[in-house]
């Protein structure tokens, strides 16, 4: 069993959900990422998601766009982010997932990308602009390296497509909570709960289901886990802390850890 599957299974046995925490690798500078990762893990993140910054992130809102700009200006490369994942894996048993747009992977060559990812201990990869139809060679390369391929499903995904996506996804299914781009939101929408309930019959017993996009507060996380999801993905809320406290690292790490702790609490069954 993969580390990622084990994490979900263990949490499920306790009746808890998983907290997946995202930050953009290299934001605001490459040397920050190991300490940021450390703080998130200390706060209770079950799975760490590191983003490779891309020049044209069409699925991202202003928060992560700005993080990508900061990381790129600081000279962050895809290889460096994979290396950061390797640093985390050396010290922790926490699974690490890489989020990247497809072009940096394509440019490196899918086989080379997955061999390199595997060598750094990366557990899974998410590519928000790679639908299953275009992913044949990508999935083959991932499979031969033993890296999970996390695919996304959205409110507009039909049940028929969902069946195909569930067949292709491994590690977990990344459910996009609402129409729109990434970014922190005030409230959890009722439609997100309905979406989880529509998707669950297709995923249960096959693959864990985690919900992201717009999830930023403990009460969102609680609502999503109570609706039956196996995990929540929080990104922009962490990235906002990184931006806000760029010049005060101590404060940044404290706040990241504190938010992770609150969110983790909310994913527990007794919450």
């Amino acid at each position: 069993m993969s580390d990622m599957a084990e994490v979900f299974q263990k949490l499920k046995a306790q009746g808890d959900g998983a907290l997946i925490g995202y930050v953009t690798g290299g934001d605001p500078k490459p040397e920050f990422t190991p300490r940021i990762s450390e703080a998130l893990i200390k706060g209770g993140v079950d799975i760490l998601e590191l983003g490779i910054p891309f020049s044209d992130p069409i699925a991202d809102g202003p928060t992560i766009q700005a993080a990508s700009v900061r990381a790129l200006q600081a000279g962050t490369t895809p290889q460096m982010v994979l290396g950061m994942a390797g640093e985390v894996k050396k010290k922790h048993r926490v699974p690490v997932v890489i989020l990247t747009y497809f072009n940096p992977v394509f440019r490196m060559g899918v086989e080379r990308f997955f061999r390199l990812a595997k060598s750094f201990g990366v557990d899974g990869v998410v590519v928000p602009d790679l639908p299953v139809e275009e992913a044949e060679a990508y999935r083959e390369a991932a499979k031969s390296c033993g890296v999970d391929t996390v695919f996304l499903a959205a409110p507009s995904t039909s049940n028929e497509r969902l069946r195909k996506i569930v067949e292709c996804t491994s590690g977990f299914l990344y459910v996009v909570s609402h129409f729109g781009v990434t970014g922190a939101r005030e409230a959890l929408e009722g439609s997100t709960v309905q979406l989880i309930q529509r998707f669950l019959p297709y995923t249960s017993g096959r693959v864990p289901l985690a919900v992201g996009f717009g999830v930023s507060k403990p009460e969102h996380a609680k609502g999503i886990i109570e609706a039956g999801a196996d995990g929540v993905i929080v990104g922009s809320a962490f990235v906002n802390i990184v931006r806000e406290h760029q010049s005060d690292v101590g404060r940044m790490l404290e706040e990241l850890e504190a938010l992770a702790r609150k969110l983790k609490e909310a994913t527990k069954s007794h919450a």
Partner: protein
Amino acid sequence: MKKLGSYPIDGKFGKYGGRFVPEVLMAAIGELEEAYAQVKQDPSFNKELEYYLSEYAGRPTPLYYAENLTKKIGGAKIYLKREDLAHGGAHKINNTLGQALLAKRMGKKRIIAETGAGQHGVATAIACAALGLKAEVYMGSEDMRRQRLNVFRMKLLGAEVHPVESGSKTLKDSINEAFRDWVTNIESTYYLVGSVVGPHPYPMLVRDFQSVIGNELKEQFLRKETRFPNALVACVGGGSNAIGTFYPFEDHPEVQLYGVEAAGEGIESNKHAAALGAGSEGVFHGMLTYVLQDTEGQIQTTHSISAGLDYPGVGPEHSFLKTLRRAKYSSATDEETVAAFCALSEEEGIIPALESSHAVAFAMKLARKMKRDETIVVTLSGRGDKDVEVVADFLGVKI
């Protein structure tokens, strides 16, 4: 091998094209593909489009023999396909009318579009005003500053213009922003893409709507010369006027196809927009195609004197034609372009858009090498009134 005209097959031109978009968009793109397949077979749609193209946009546009320019150069006969005379002053209207009619049939009331120089934004605003649709146009704040007149034109035409502050604040960023709007408002909104770029079916349907250029010129040329031209020349940014010109001739190998990209300050200066000439294969704006990128796969910013060619990618059908060597791709520098802009203005009394001036510059070189009984058709994709200030500035003339 299949006839070139039968591509895309399964959304691809050979290996180029495809649909590299967020899952949220897959349903909408599928819906668009189906709706387009339906209207393509529907005589009433084609009749309506033809009505607007002729009665409203002023088609067919003339095919003009540029006798003065031909004599001055002393080589092949040069003809101009006068898209600059279409309503709005460019070929863009062929596509915006087609897609706006399609959007209307799909029951979408809100149209979004991206624009660089503002030409596609203006053409979208025009089509939407004519058809009673609401247009919202994304435009980089840097481009808005450079193209103030077009911003005001769009507003006069009833469109709303949203400044884009992200990235390089130019065309590629306004496309990113239009995509972000689309994923957010997918139920109500139609994304009216301005060139033969983006995920399938856009490169195909924009090509089909622009093919009116090539189809008309084929007939007009046969009537004048009782044969096909030896060469077709068109400028390539995203590449819609070029594909519209080439497509009806793709399966006639005796007709040479030449696409002309923006070499900016010269390819070696790295300040250019020649994706086919100096780029490499990548995945960008939903398609696999040639793109200007660094070794890590980050998309690069581009430079051209003509904002309409200032785009780091190119339509996937061009990548396909390049790989097959069916079309040849060359480029013209800012300097060569301005010289051609001036030459056509002086010799023929026609001020071409800077985009189209790239094609004129290349055609003048090509004509010199060809025989006098041979023929070239240059697609004059737009008129140059919008560029007069830029050219004066380039020449150091105070106006």
